């Protein structure tokens, strides 16, 4: 009796159940379709001569297709070399000078014996991560002003004030130092988590074998965070051409464009404010293709040589 009824009942129930579940998700799916997928489709304007008022993202006959013309124009444009160089260098400096700092910081915290002190140091080091970019930028700008604290210190030591905010040569250093200051504490979290999962018996055993603290760090703590280091390095390399343009936008000015203008800021200025929508979209597509390629290469290399990979 039971066996007779159930299959039929279950299949109609299944259908109703699935309908119900999709209804629950529907608002979210629609939102993602509109705000993520339609802009992706909108990339086709990179291959058109689009300007406002023309049919929106369409294949209508009035659409003027230009193929790769916007890409070619951008590559041959006066700013291409400068933008590529700045975008690469600013990310590269951050990688080279900033990547190992969270690792060292985590190793340092791991060696501190006082739990309370360690907690205070951690809390302090995370703080800049939660302060808005605007506030950090406002502080940095006031510090590097000709009458700001940096120059006051320079004067204190008998030096002559420097125009830090208008001299292009200083911008990379200012950007790199500020970015590291803002992020090093928070970036150490994943390392600390990996370290805390190490079995304490390993340290005990090492002590028995006569390993000193430095050796314990080298042979137990460091290997425990190696996967984390590799994965974060893959991400960092994948980001080599995506300098933090939202922050640069806040601290640069026309006088330092020579070293500060990156693809993201150019895209905002020339593409969005300048109304060159097709060109801006082409530039954006170009950079995201490069970034994805970089991530892909880094991931393949990492999988080949270290067994750690994102996918």
């Amino acid at each position: 009796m039971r066996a007779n009824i159930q299959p039929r009942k279950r299949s109609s129930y299944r259908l109703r159940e699935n309908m119900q579940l999709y209804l629950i998700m529907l608002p979210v799916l629609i939102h993602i379709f509109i705000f993520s997928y339609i802009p992706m489709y909108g990339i086709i304007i990179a291959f058109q001569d689009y300007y406002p008022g023309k049919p929106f993202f369409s294949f209508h006959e009035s659409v003027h297709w230009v193929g790769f013309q916007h890409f070619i124009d951008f590559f041959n444009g006066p700013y291409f070399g400068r933008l590529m160089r700045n975008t690469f260098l600013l990310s590269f400096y951050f990688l080279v000078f900033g990547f190992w700092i969270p690792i060292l910081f985590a190793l340092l915290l791991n060696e501190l014996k006082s739990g309370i002190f360690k907690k205070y140091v951690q809390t302090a080091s995370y703080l800049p991560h939660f302060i808005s970019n605007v506030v950090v930028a406002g502080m940095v700008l006031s510090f590097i002003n000709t009458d700001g604290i940096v120059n006051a210190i320079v004067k204190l030591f008998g030096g002559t004030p420097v125009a830090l905010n208008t001299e292009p040569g200083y911008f990379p250093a200012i950007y790199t130092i500020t970015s590291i200051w803002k992020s090093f504490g928070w970036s150490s979290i994943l390392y600390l988590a990996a370290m805390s999962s190490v079995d304490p018996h390993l340290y005990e055993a090492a002590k028995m074998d006569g390993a000193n603290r430095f050796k314990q760090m080298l042979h137990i703590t460091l290997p425990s965070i190696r996967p984390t280091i590799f994965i974060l390095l893959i991400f960092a390399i994948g980001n080599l051409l995506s300098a933090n343009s939202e922050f640069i936008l806040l601290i640069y000015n026309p006088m330092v464009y020579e070293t500060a203008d990156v693809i993201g800021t150019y895209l905002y200025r020339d593409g969005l404010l300048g109304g060159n929508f097709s060109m801006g979209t082409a530039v954006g597509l170009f950079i995201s293709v490069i970034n994805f390629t970089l991530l892909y290469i880094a991931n393949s290399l990492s999988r080949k040589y270290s067994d750690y990979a994102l996918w």
Partner: protein
Amino acid sequence: MATVRRNPNRIKQGSVAVDIILYAIALVICLITLYPFYFVIIMSISSPSEVAAMNVFWFPKGFFLGSYELIVRDTKMWWAYSNTLIYVGAGTLLNCLTAVLGAYPLTVRNLKGRKWVVTFLLIPMYFGGGLIPSYLLINKLGMYNTMFAVIIPGMVSIWNIILVRTFFTTIPEGLKESAFIDGASHLQLLFRVILPISKPILAVIAIYSIVGIWNSWFDALVYLPNEKLHPLQMYLYRVVVQQSVDLKMLSLEDTKNAVANMLSNIQLKYAIIVFTTLPVIFTYPFFQKYFIKGALLGSLKE
């Protein structure tokens, strides 16, 4: 007993000297991290003449709250404050709601086409249309220069959906089954049974949303030319970065107030930075554990 056991070890390894050095380095790092904030605070409360002479380094010199008196009368700032509260409130609620609605169905094992839905969610995490297509879309939808431009596009976070889904899968199946036996529908199960025990993950998402929206300014820069709609960070942007708002104008409203006229621009800027950032600095240590939890949960999926 414990000291007897620990001490020989330490002496043998020369740990005391090493410890002192490590603690000293940690202190210096703390100093470097916190000093900029400390400097901004002491500058904002020192007497204007010392500030103008750049004499303040370690301790406030003199004591003067005139800049704060001026700031609290800044109606534009309060306006921006209230806008931010609207954006944070609406954005956080919507983020939590959509994360739950998006995550729950994905945890039901016999959902047909689940793999397709997951792929549909994952693709936008790696590819995007970019700034300009999104800008054109917002314009086309008639959201440009309305509060919706800042609230609606950000109300769904795929990242949050994945976090909540991961949490939901840890809920024992038995709990769900017993609800079904009682004749509950999926929606009832979700809101009556699962949500009440999901507070930890909702707290993580809520706190990330609050801080994220509180700190965001770029959307407002792109989508909101109307200053009346600007959130606090955008107002700060105009004051401390773009310098298109002169806070000294506030003091011109009552020129009788001679003290106000002595104020330097820098002191007013520092005062407004402190005044708008203090809520974050004071509340963040209490929420720290949620942030860390979120960071660690997120890393599982990386």
